[in-house]
Structures are given as C-alpha cells and as structure tokens.
C-alpha cells in the first residue's frame, strides 16, 4: 500500500487522474499452496464453519475444515482469525466493462447494439478489463460478473468474467453462457389513453411517453404479437439448426444453438407478471432453461416459478414499491417470498450511480426482511453460480472448486462492518486497491491526514 501511495504522489505530472489505476496490477498465477486459517467460513451453501481452514492448491480448493495441517514449506498462509471468510461474490447480470460513463460520454459506452434481434452479438468481445469501476467491486468482494448486453428484443449473448485480468480473453470465466431476451411490455405506456395522469405534469410532456403504438390499442395484444414474432424466430432457428449444411449462413440462428442444446440459458428480462408468464411459456414450448432477470413482481407468482423450474435474478432490491398501495418494504422482502417458495434466485445490483458495489448490501437488506444471513449470502454466491452455469467452478467454498475467496473484517452484508481485507481468484491474491483508494491516499497526503 505504501509503495503504491508513493508512486502516486510522485506522479505529479499526471494531471488527469483517470490513469491513476495503471499502478494496479492483475495478480500473477499462483500455483503454490495457500492456507486461509482460523476464519469463520461461510461456505455459501448455508453452512458456517467456525475456526476453519481452507487449503488451496494450484488455484483449487482441496480441503476445507478444521485440523488441517500446514506444512512448513514455502506456503502462503493468511490468518483469518476473527474474520469472516466468504466465496467470491457474483454480480449476476451487469453492463460492467461495457458502460463506462453512461451519460454524456457516448464514446465510452458499448452496451447496446442497434437492431431488435441480435443473439449473435457477444458482450465478451467489448468487455473492458481496465474499467475503473472494476477495482471498486473487487474491494467489496465482488470477483465475478455476468456481462450482459442490453437493448432490442434479443440483446445478445452474455459471458461470465472474473474481475482480475489483463484482457477479456484472460477474464473469460465462462464464454457465452446465455442469450438475453427482453420480454415485450404488457403494460400500456404512460399517458397513452389519457386519464390517470397525475396532476401538475405539463401536458406537452406527456408526448414524450406517448410514442409508439396506436391510440387505444390493447397493450396485451400488442405484446403477444411481439412475443409471437420472437417465437417465430426460435421456431425457424430450430428448423435451421436441424440441418447441418446451409447455402446461406444465418449467424443469428447459429447463435442460439446452445439454447436448444441446453448449453446456454435463456435470460428473459421481465418484471411484470404477464411477462414472466410469457417466459414460462417460452420454457415450455422450446424446452429452454429459462432465467428471469429483473423479476420485481416475482413475489406474486413465486410458486409458479418454482413449479416450472424457472430461476430468478432479482435485479434491484433497493427499489421503490411498484405501486403506491404496495407494502412499503415489498421490494426488500421479495427475496424472502422467493426463498419460501423454493425458487432458485440470485440477488443483483444494477444501481447505476453507485455502480454495483452494493451487491452485498442488497443481500443484507434481504436478510433484514426475512432471509437468514446465510440464505442472503447464498443469493450472491452459490445461487448466482448455479444460475450462470459456473457452480462447478465457484459459488461456494467447497473442495474441487476454484480458490475464489473473500475475507472481511466483519459481516460483509452490513456496511458498517464489511471491510474486505483479502480477496483471491483461483488462488491468486488480487489487489483491493482502486482509483478511489488512491485518491483517498492522495488527499490524505495533501491534508496531512493520518
């Protein structure tokens, strides 16, 4: 830390601080033995082991438990006494590395392509490992992210990355794990039919929300027509894929092959009940593995989701209730409703202003409103891994998985005690430094703050 600090303060020529992070290095491969000892180990599957040791060898967890002997050779030992040990946290669906500065700096954005049907568009190729946001996530224990394209009806293909890499090929943890579909809205848009509009809005302003669709048209009918178009796409894709040779290649059809092979999941972005019912219908017709992303209204049909084996990524728990009559804490307790119904769900953080760093606090809120702390943790670790299709490699501190570990001073779900002190990806100790910490050091120096 001191070294970094010195190098920063000596770089007085750097008037543009945007480059400050260039002193933060991705960690090199570590093939030796690593022991994390005496910590309170939160396995990620609900289990907690007090005073346990985790043994990592060649990047993999080989032992977890008590009474694990530590050889006297050249091994790395991290004493986690009094600390909390967690699996690396997973940000399930994000524009991280695609959207750098959302507003006003168009050149920094690569998250949304032109066109309605873009299954062949792959997020991974634009993923920027040098995004300044990444360091702030690592510092809060987030070590993996599902990088997700946005926009259109089928936005494209996501991949999962680990957050300590030189370039996207380095970062890729699972290529092309899912196709992302935006379910058409079944809610009539604001101001379309007049009436119901709160007082005090300049009438002209309504024009902005009135676009698209004919006056008085039935939103459900319109949505179903769009859904039918999407289904037609998949039906034709299925037919195309049954034939191996084609005179004319269709990249869009080829891009969804994994869905039919069950090598990919269909991530349906949907919040409204009817959108989600439509997603269930997709899973039935095509036999896809369907994950619903967003899912703010999922508490209403949690049992149906369970019955149909639909997993959920709950996007932004720190939201206002959907309607003014809703329980004031409805979004906070939605995870508990899903848990109770037995739905496989992950919690996410899509907050554009704090830039996804509060993932664990979303889980903390869920724990305040009905989940146990371990269930809440599982929603940002093992459940997320299962949903993204990486649970064979990570998501819990279990033997055979990668050594992806986060060590915090206290409860990682609670902001007042959640300082992360160590993080490991595949056994590599990754830097917890970031631009903000460097600026902190820089100005501590300016003001002579201890």
């Amino acid at each position, binding site marked *: 830390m001191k070294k970094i600090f010195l190098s920063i303060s000596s770089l007085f020529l750097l008037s543009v601080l945007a480059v400050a992070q260039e002193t933060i290095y991705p960690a090199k491969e570590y093939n030796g033995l690593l022991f994390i000892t005496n910590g309170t180990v939160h396995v990620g599957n609900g289990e907690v082991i007090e005073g346990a040791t985790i043994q990592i060898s060649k990047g993999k967890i080989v032992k977890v438990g008590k009474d694990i002997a530590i050889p006297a050779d050249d091994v790395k030992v991290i004493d986690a006494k009094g600390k909390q040990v967690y699996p690396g946290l997973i940000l399930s669906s994000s524009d991280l590395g695609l959207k750098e500065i*959302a507003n006003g700096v168009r050149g920094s954005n690569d998250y949304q392509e032109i066109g309605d049907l873009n299954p062949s568009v792959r997020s991974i190729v634009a993923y920027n490992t040098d995004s300044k946001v990444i360091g702030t996530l690592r510092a809060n224990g987030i070590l993996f992210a599902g990088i997700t394209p946005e926009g259109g009806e089928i936005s494209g293909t996501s991949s999962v990355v680990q957050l300590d890499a030189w370039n996207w090929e380095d970062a890729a943890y699972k290529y092309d794990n899912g196709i992302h579909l935006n379910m058409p809205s*079944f809610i009539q848009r604001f101001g379309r039919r007049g009436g*119901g509009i709160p007082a005090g809005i300049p009438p*002209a302003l309504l024009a*902005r929300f009135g676009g698209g669709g004919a006056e008085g048209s039935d939103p459900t009918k319109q949505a179903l027509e769009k859904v039918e178009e999407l289904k037609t796409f998949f039906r034709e894709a299925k037919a195309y894929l049954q034939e191996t040779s084609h005179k004319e290649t269709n990249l869009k059809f080829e891009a969804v092959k994994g869905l039919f092979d069950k090598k990919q999941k269909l991530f349906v972005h949907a919040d409204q009940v009817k959108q989600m019912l439509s997603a269930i219908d997709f899973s039935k017709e095509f036999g896809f593995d369907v994950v619903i992303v967003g899912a703010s209204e999922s508490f209403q049909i949690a049992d149906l989701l369970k019955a149909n084996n639909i997993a959920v990524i709950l996007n932004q728990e720190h939201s*206002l209730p959907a309607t*003014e009559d809703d329980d004031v804490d409805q979004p906070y307790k939605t995870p508990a409703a899903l848990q109770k119904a037995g739905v496989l769900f992950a919690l996410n953080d899509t907050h554009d202003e704090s830039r996804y760093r509060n993932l664990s606090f979303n889980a903390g809120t869920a724990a305040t409103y009905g989940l146990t702390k371990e269930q809440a943790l599982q929603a940002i670790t093992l459940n997320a891994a299962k949903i993204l299709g990486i649970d064979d490699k990570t998501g819990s501190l279990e033997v055979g998985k990668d050594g992806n570990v986060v060590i915090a001073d206290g409860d990682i779900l*609670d902001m007042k005690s959640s300082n992360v002190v160590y993080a490991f990806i595949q056994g590599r100790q990754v830097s917890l430094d970031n631009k*903000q910490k460097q600026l902190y050091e820089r100005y501590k120096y300016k003001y002579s703050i201890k």
Partner: protein
Amino acid sequence: MRKFKLLLSGLLFVSLIQAQETFPVNGIADKRSGTFAFTNATIVKDVQTTLQNATLIISDGKIIAVGNNITIPKEAVVVDCKEKYIYPSFIDIYSDYGITTPQRAPGGFNFSAPAQITSNTKGAYNWNQAIKPETDASKLFAADESKAKPYREIGFGTVLTHVKDGIARGTGAVVTLANAKDGFKENLILLKEKASAHYSFNRGTSSQSYPSSVMGSIALLRQTYLDAQWYKSKPSKEGINLSLQAFNDNQSLPQIFEGDDKWTDLRADRVGDEFGVQYIIKAGGNEYQRIADIAATKATYILSLNYPQAMDVEDPNDARLVSLADMKHWELAPTNPAAFEKANIPFALTTADLRDPKQFLTNLRKAIDLGLSENKALEALTKTPASLLNIYDKVGSLDVGKIANFIITSGPVFNEKTVLLNNWIQGEKYAVKEDGWNDVKGNYTLVINAPSGTINYTLDVKSASAANVIGKDTLTGKFSFDGKIVKLSFSTTPARRSQFGGGAAGSFSGQGGGGFGGGRGGNPSQFRLSGFANGGRWNGNGEDTAGNKVTWTAKFDSAYTAIDSTKKRPSFPQRLGKVVYPFDGYGWEEMPKQENILIKNATVWTNEKDGVLENTDVLVKNGKIAKVGKNLSDESAKIIDGTGKHLTAGIIDEHSHIAAASINEGGQSVTSEVRIGDNLNPEDINIYRQLSGGVTSSHILHGSANTIGGQTQLIKLRWGANDDDLKFKGADPFIKFALGENVKRTTSQNNNRFPDTRMGVDQVLDDAFARAKDYEAAMKADPKGTRRDLELDALVEILNKKRFITCHSYVQSEITSAMRIGDKYGFKFNTFTHILEGYKVADKMKVHGSNASTFSDWWYYKQEVIDANAYNAAIMQKVGLNVCINSDDAEQARRLNQEAAKTVKYGGVGEEDALKMVTLNPAKALHVADKVGSIKIGKDADLVLWSNHPLSIYAVAEKTMVDGIVFFDRTRDLELRKKISSERNRLVQKMLGEKRSGAPTRPAEPSWQVILSCGDHDHHDGLITVDLSTDDTINN
C-alpha cells in the same frame, strides 16, 4: 292552437322575432313581435319561487309578464303548458363555445430542440407568450350551431365563453346559444363583451421555454401582477405594453382561475390573496378530498361533473396497477358537489371537461343521489353563475324584463323521467324533444274503416312506443309515436300467448290447436296504420294483409291508470369509502394527535456531549423533548418500551425532491423567483415511505436545470397535513444553485441557452449578482420608480444574508470559482451539495465557511463524477467541514442511516459522527440545529425508534415521530396493509359490478407515479413510475 302546433313541428327555426336595424333585408320585411303566452304551467321563476298554474308571457325576446291571473295579450300565440314545467334555462360559466380552441403547433414537442428564450408573439405585447390578457373572446366569437345544439338539448341557454389558453387568458364574453342567421347575427347573441378575466397555471400553447413548471407559472403570474402595477406609472423604459395595459383593464372584471386539482385551487387562491384578488376557481373535481381547506379559500367555485369512468379491472394484473386512490376517486367524485354544498361553499356548475355533454344531466343526477340538493343544483345553473358575471339582471330567473331564456320540461327538471321538451332562447323556440309534449298514454277508441266495414277497437297506449289493441282479444301491436306521426301495426288474432296468463283477456282463437303452427299459419289479418295526431284526435290511413286500403281514427277516451312503477331513487345510503388524509391507502381517517410519550430503557443516541446513553428514558411533552434520563416517569405520558432498541434524532435529508408538483424550472438560467414552497404536494406517497425509513425533515430543492434555480422548501414529514402545514416553520429560507454539466446542458445536442461552459456559468453568477446589487441601490434611491423584480429580490436577500445557498456542484474548478463569486459580492455559499470533488478543495471550503452535503458512494455516471469518491465524506470531515449525507433519491432516502454508515466503512468515521451526518449536521447546514438534529431538552420531538443499531443494515425504524406525533408506526402499518387490501377488493368488486351492469368502462389505467428529480441521474423506481427530470422539462 292546432295551427300553431303544426307550424312548430314542421319548422324548427322560422320566426324572425327580432331583426337587426343596420342589416339590409334581402326580400320582403317580415317583422314579428314574437309574443307568446305559456299558460297553465308550473313556473319555477327562481329557486325560491315556484308558481302553479301560471302564465309566462314573452315578447320581442324578453319576458314581459309572469304570474297567475295575468292578462294574455291578443297578439300572443298561446302555448298550453298544462302539466309542464318552465325553468330559467341554464348558464354555463366555463365554456369555450364558439371559439376555436388553440392548438399546439403540429409535431408537438421536440425535446432535443433548442430553448425558445423569447416570445413568438409579434407586436407590442408582453415578454412572455403565455401572458395574453389582451385576448378578447368577444372578438373571436362566432356562433356554432353544431356545438350549440347539444348544449341546448341539456337545458343551457347562456354561456360564458373564453379562450382556454395561457396563464393570463384575457376576457370572456357572455353569449346565448341562439342560432346565428340573417337578421339575427352574433351582434344580438353576444350579451356582454367583457364579462370576466381568465387565468391558469398552464402556459398552454406558448412555445416559449419559460415557464416549464407549475412553480414557474406561479412566479410568472406573480411577477405579472407586479409589472402591471408598475406599468400604471407609465414607465418610459417599458414603452407601450398592450398586455400589461389589458391586464390592468381586466382587473375590474370577475377573475376566474382554472384549477385542475384541489392543490392547484389552493395555490391559485394564495396568489390571489397576495394581490387582493379573489378568484372564482374552476375546480378540478377532487376538492371533496380537502373540503375544509377549500372552504378556507372563501372562493366561489365552478364545478365540472366530469367523473372518472369505471375501469375494466377484470384482469387482476391490470387491476393491480390501479391505485386505491384512483378507485376511491372513481367512487367519490360524484360526491364533490354535495361536499361543496355541505361545506357552504358557493359554486356554479359547468359542462366543461365532459366527454359528451349528454352526460351532464345523468352525472348531475348522480351528484343529487349522493346528497346534492335539487335547489342547490338549480341555483348553481342559474342564479349563481348569472350573479358571478353580473348578468342576473338579464338571465338566471324568469322575471319581467329578463331575456326570454327558458326551458319547458315534462316534469321536475332533475327527475330521471323528465323530458326536456323545448329550450327557448331569446324568445325563440328550439324544439328538443317535441314528442314528449303530449302525454300520449291513455285509452283511445280506434275505429278502422275497412272495405268490409267498420271495426272498433280500444287502443291502450302505454307509452310512445308500446300499445295494445283490445278487441275480442288483447292484441299486442307495434306502436310508435314521435309527437306527431303515429304508426301502428297489429294482427287481428293473438299470437301464441297461452303460456302467458297475465293480461291476456279474451278467448283463444282456433289456431292454438296445433300449438306449433307459428303466428302466421292461421291466416290472421294484419293492419298497418299510419296517421297524424292532433291532441286527442288522431286520423290516418293504412292497409291490411290483403292490401285493402283503410282509413282510421282514434279518439282519446280515458287516461292511463296504471300505477307509476317508477322507482324512487334509492334512499338507502350507498356504501362509500371514507375520505382519508392524504387521499391514499396509507392516509388517516383522522389526523394523529400530539401525545405525551415516554420512551423507556432505550439506547439513546443524543448527538450531544452525552454521546450514546444506554438504558435511558426520553420524555416527550407537547411535541418537544422534555426530559432525558434514567427512571423517568410521567402520568400523562404513553409509555413506549425501548428495551433493546435504539432511539435517535429524526433523519434530515438535505437534498430531496419529493412532495412537490414540480422541481425544475429550466426555462431560463436564472429563476430565483420560483419557489418550491409554492407547489408542495403533501400527498406524495414517498413521504410515508421515508417516514418508514426514519426521515422526519426533508429539504426540497429545486432541480439542477439552471445556474440559479429556485427557492427551496424545508418540510417536516407530517403525513396527512396540507401543503402549508408541511412547511418547517421558522426556518431560514434557502435557494438552490447549480454548476457544471446540467446547467450547461451537456446531454443536449442543441444547446442555445447561455451558458455552455463552466466559464459561462461563472459569468451567469457574476452578472446576476451585479444586477442584484444595482437593483438594490436603485430600489433604495427610487422605490416607486424601480420595477420590483422578484428574481433580483431573492438575490438581494442572499447579499443581505437573509437567504442562503445550497449549490449543486461536482468538480473542484467550479466549486472554487463559485466561492470566489461569493467572496466578490460578500456572501457565502452556505452549502455545496453533491460536492463529489469536495475532498479536493475541502480546505478552501473550510476557509469560505461552507457546509458539504454529499452522496456516500455514488460515482462514474457522467463525466464530471469520474473522480467522485466514497472517501469524500471522511476526508471533508477530517478537514473540519460540517458534512451531511443526502439522498437526492426517493428510494435511497429510505435508507439514509445506511448511507451514513458507509462513512464508517469508507474512511473510518466514528459511528456517532456518522449518524450526525444524516441528523445533526444537516440541521446545522440548514440553520435549524436549535430545533432539530439531536436529542436535547427543548428540541422538537422528531425521533426514531430503531429495532437495531441505527447504522446497521439490520435496523428498521419501528416508530417515527415528528413534533411528538407518531406518523409512522410499524404496527399500524401492518394494519393498514390489511385495510388497503380489503378496500381495494371492495372497489374492484364494485367496478366489476359496474361493468357487468353494462355501464361503459375504460381499460384499466395504471396509476402512474411521477417521481420528480434533479435530472442528474437515474432512479430506481417502481414498475409504474415516471421519472421526470431536467431535460424533460428544460425545453418544455
């Protein structure tokens, strides 16, 4: 008599009762006196006076006599009005009849279009396009028969018409609904050229950027009053301003203001009060929700009967998005007129806003069913509007000398079965439903002269469309009567009716034998008859089945004796929801009262020298903190057990945008004249939601659309109070400034509004304060000759340390340059808000004496926040600044304690200091630390009882009190949830009932919640929220 009736029914508009002297006649002069006598009528002269068996005489378009036993002039055409009622025709005081409604330019708004800084109106008019008091409805009026007819058909004779466009809308004209034609042009239809002056807060078709908000409209109107006053001195610098001239000229007229909602009504009334004007207010329809506040305006209101239609809530997913408040309003909107009557608020009724004028009487009857008295309704349609417009000498009652505007009805005017027969306007008859004139019901002797001989029947007429023919058998005929022409067809033998016992007198004919032969098999003869009715004697011709020609007569014999089965209106009380405050599921049926409360044995975070006190009691008395200590007792106090819980001062959000109707007035770079306090919305559900997160005070800031934004308003979250009672009384006034990207409109492709750079922002500030200084000096030197400028008044207050700045700011360059402007003019930037690069210039801010109010961990959502830093608060605090953590976000405000806790995580701020960042520190920054912000004897009892350590994510506010009143209580909240659910269900069922009864419904409309914001960043709102921010309104 007979002749006259023929004439009338044949020709609708025939007589030229008046003629215009200056107009040449093309043809033979046809001057008529137009003298009519309406005899034997029940004449309702006015609400107080009803004459039975009376006569009304009109001549030359005027009433010349009315009463009993009056002599009928020989030249009068006599109209027998036996069993008829005559009323003065109705007056609509809020119409745009005969005036083309101004439309926005085609294409509507283009949000990326450049701002329009100046007015597009050509000529010597006002600087702002929405101020057009020179508009004169009488000059624009042209009679429009297509619009007049539906009006007349529901009983109206006179309207006040005006141009419904703009903030100052000009004058209205009184016109009748007569048809314009040769000899009777608008010259005669127009009764009063300038009868009223009209206003609103809606800028209408004005394409000018300013004002773009409710509060901007209010400020503009306020300034216009001042400008008009000043203009009276004929200031040479202003030259001739026809708008201000007209504005002044119009002041002597009745002043009518269009409110669109209960809060708008109150806002309008307050502006009126400032300038000694009592507006007549066109109500929005939801005033019953705050009737006491409405009564307090002492205004007369104009009520529309435009009730929301029931929604189709068959689909529960659609129903879910319709709020309880909207459903309740659907149920209760028809109680609005009754609520006014009960509260003794004078009002007139209007047809304005109705989708179809035909709904008017139906909707009025609904209002009467729900408690409006018929007399009041009649008064509201006649005397009240006439008196308001000072035309009661002309219309509004049936008195001698008034214009002959009246209606003739078949019964009491508001009865459901009553038919409006004629509407007479200016002495001319307009038939409405002539067929209803004669009661056709009764027994007639029908004689058919067939070639085979004469056949006699009794014709039993049940209504204008149903009759039986009784001969040997009772024969059901097809019958119709349109007031003149009678049509009748029937079979001479009964159809198979054996299954019906009732009414089928007479024997069965032979054709019943087979039973399956059908009606026609038995070769019955059928007559098809047509003829004219002349009172009780009808005659005509027809044919039988064989084609034989017949003639027929019918003579009235005896009256119809069947008992009128018309049900009286339901007298049983309908089950209606209660009005709650706010009008929302979480509202109060009765406002909570201040209590003495003793919180026992809690962990008390005092924010004072005492620090955190374990096992401590706090006594609240009369809304203040009375005692803090161990083992307190007070007999008057309600005990709350605080064991295991934490008590803190209420959270104060230094930067919030809830509870207002508009937030951004982006029309100009300097808008210090606008005031958030002018447009508070105390019914914002986010008030309640934030109480549930422990917030007790919020500083409602203007947005960041411009460099010098509007005046802010500190409020206390007194859920249920009205807009004025929401205000934090006695607090220093503040104003919002903004720097950087938003004010230079970075995201707009076509910015043409100065400034476009931070260099320009600096100059906007410099220029504004230079002008303010000069203005202050000019005011001192020549207070009468200097134009009062509300924009500069606010800046002068800043110069004199009577108003304080909270300044949206991000990067160090702009922060420093702002402070230098302050130094130059001798004032402080009291608070820098956002201040995400505050850590870079914290030392300079300390010297300047600024407070800092920031986000805990926001960054990287736009260029100017790329150096934002979660350690910002900690650094600034360590440098010695008073640091606050704010929300600027309706969702995050519910978790401000957690945001404060992040300063412990990022930079190691102590826990007590962290909590102060959302309690005591904002109180200091807002100059209210003597009242709130800590648990100290004598301070306001704004307290939160937490379930856990208040900085922990696991802490939940169990009780939140403001001024010692518990406004949020988790136990009550759970009860409310159940109540909301059952009340929703009741209303859904009721709407479904409405749909199943065949009443028209509209598709379920989601109850959109508008979230107003700074315009700075995205928000995380619910499914049906609409996020309105800077750039939406900036061009608006």
